[in-house]
């Protein structure tokens, strides 16, 4: 009896610890997005993107604590409308844990909050890259408040919070759709209202390159994200403390890694064949697209299947980047392609290896999430535009946002 209790306590401790470390790795992804984005913008907008990133992460944590988490995991009777409540506290008692059985908690609730909160931040980070170099700082922060408090949590409730998408069989392991495509949808809405950076598209239809200022930082960012993704996907198994869970987590780690590798190689080769050069930024986007693609179902494929999924994702991202440019949708870091297009692909790729997923479930999930996030975001961006504007003036854009928004330079001596 006491032995059983001790084992239950130990399991609880291991699963909690696993959760916390996974969450810490996902938190680390915030640094990845920051470095990636600060490397891909021009130096005159670098301080601003740094402020935006550390600010949005902080806002995400606060808003999700205040209301978002409760919305997402509310005990609402309705599978569509969650209930509203505030703040999170308290944790499981020893008694509840050692009671054992199906319903006994097997990890700390606070560790669950910690793991969930960093996911919101990820979704929000996706947006900052797409609207970079032209969106007002404080308008962006305002949107972050709404996104993290309401927009993201509501659709999170529908799927992971046991709402109607869950009931309809939508299968999205760690959130290719729920996190990545959702972030991309909000970004797309913002970008459409915002317009492209000045000079990106010529009046004659030409597409101009606006090279990012610091490629090593962008590369570092991708490595950080790659590492963080082990927490993102690995932690989403939600349990590690028995043989089957441990095997599953191992499979997820290995698949996550190989999908990213496939994305890199596929993007590099594809770019080389199509355009003749080994484009670093495409390789970086390829890695991320591989990661996003596998995220909806990293547990069911074999490593070889994961390799294929990641590779296809890498190619899709490259095509999407080229395509969006043709549509004059300006996304300085490729966030919409990497998280949106590859995210959609990822959700559909689940059908290949997971017999439990259904085409209708996946399509409805994608449609609902996109419609909700895109629609509400568009409305919120529009309201903010009305209230305080979302775009900096042409002169500010020319001089750089660092000067006007932050009053300092990123590299004052160079």
């Amino acid at each position: 009896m006491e032995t059983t209790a001790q084992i239950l306590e130990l399991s609880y401790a291991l699963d909690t610890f696993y959760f916390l470390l996974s969450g810490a790795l996902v938190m680390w992804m915030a640094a990845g997005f920051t470095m990636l984005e600060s490397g891909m913008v021009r130096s005159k907008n670098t301080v601003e993107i740094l402020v935006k990133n550390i600010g949005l992460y902080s806002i995400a944590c606060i808003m999700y604590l205040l209301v978002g988490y409760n919305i997402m995991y509310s005990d609402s009777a309705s599978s569509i409308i969650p209930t509203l409540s505030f703040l999170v506290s308290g944790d499981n008692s020893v008694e509840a844990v050692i009671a054992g059985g199906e319903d006994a908690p097997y990890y700390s609730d606070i560790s669950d909050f910690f793991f969930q909160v960093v996911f919101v931040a990820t979704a929000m980070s996706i947006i900052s890259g797409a609207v970079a170099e032209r969106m007002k700082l404080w308008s962006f922060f305002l949107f972050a408040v709404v996104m993290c408090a309401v927009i993201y949590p509501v659709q999170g409730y529908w799927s992971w919070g046991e709402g109607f998408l869950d009931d309809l069989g939508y299968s999205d392991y760690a959130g290719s759709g729920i996190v990545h495509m959702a972030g991309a949808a909000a970004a797309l809405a913002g970008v459409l209202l915002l317009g492209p950076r000045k000079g990106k598209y010529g009046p004659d239809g030409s597409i101009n390159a606006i090279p990012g200022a610091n490629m090593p930082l962008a590369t570092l960012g991708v490595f950080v994200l790659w590492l963080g993704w082990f927490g993102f996907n690995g932690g989403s198994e939600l349990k590690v403390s028995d043989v089957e869970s441990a095997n599953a987590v191992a499979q997820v780690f290995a698949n996550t890694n190989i999908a990213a590798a496939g994305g890199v190689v596929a993007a590099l080769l594809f770019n080389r064949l199509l355009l003749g050069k080994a484009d670093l930024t495409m390789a970086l986007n390829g890695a991320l697209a591989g990661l996003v693609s596998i995220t909806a179902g990293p547990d069911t494929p074999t490593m070889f299947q994961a390799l294929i999924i990641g590779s296809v994702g890498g190619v899709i991202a490259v095509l999407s980047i080229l395509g969006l440019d043709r549509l004059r949708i300006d996304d300085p870091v490729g966030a919409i392609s990497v998280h949106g297009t590859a995210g959609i692909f990822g959700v559909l790729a689940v059908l290949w290896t997971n017999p439990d997923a259904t085409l209708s479930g996946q399509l409805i999930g994608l449609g609902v999430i996109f419609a909700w996030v895109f629609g509400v975001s568009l409305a919120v961006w529009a309201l903010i535009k009305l209230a305080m504007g979302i775009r900096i003036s042409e002169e500010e854009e020319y001089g750089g946002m660092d000067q006007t928004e932050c009053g300092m330079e990123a590299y004052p001596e160079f």
Partner: protein
Amino acid sequence: MKLIIAIIKPFKLDDLRDALSKAGVHGLTVTEVKGFGRQKGHTELYRGAEYRVDFLPKLKLEIAVAAEQVDSVVETIQQVANTGKIGDGKIFVLDLLESIRIRTGERGSDAL
């Protein structure tokens, strides 16, 4: 006195400085510049969008010399900075009315 301005290929700097020292030049000032001329630039590619880089890195040397040194200095530059390939650069000679050494106030050729 004359002011000689030379636009050269960057990798020629060290050789040229040595040669000029031997030719009696005690000082010069170098600026990193971008040159546009007959020499073609190259095309770069960033995320699928091509762009031409027409301005090539060059160095500009400014050398104040006494009138009698002009010919030998020009000669030296022309020989040492020459690779025979397009884009080797130019030498321009301007008249220099006065020159002053800040430290001492010396004027004219003494200041060089």
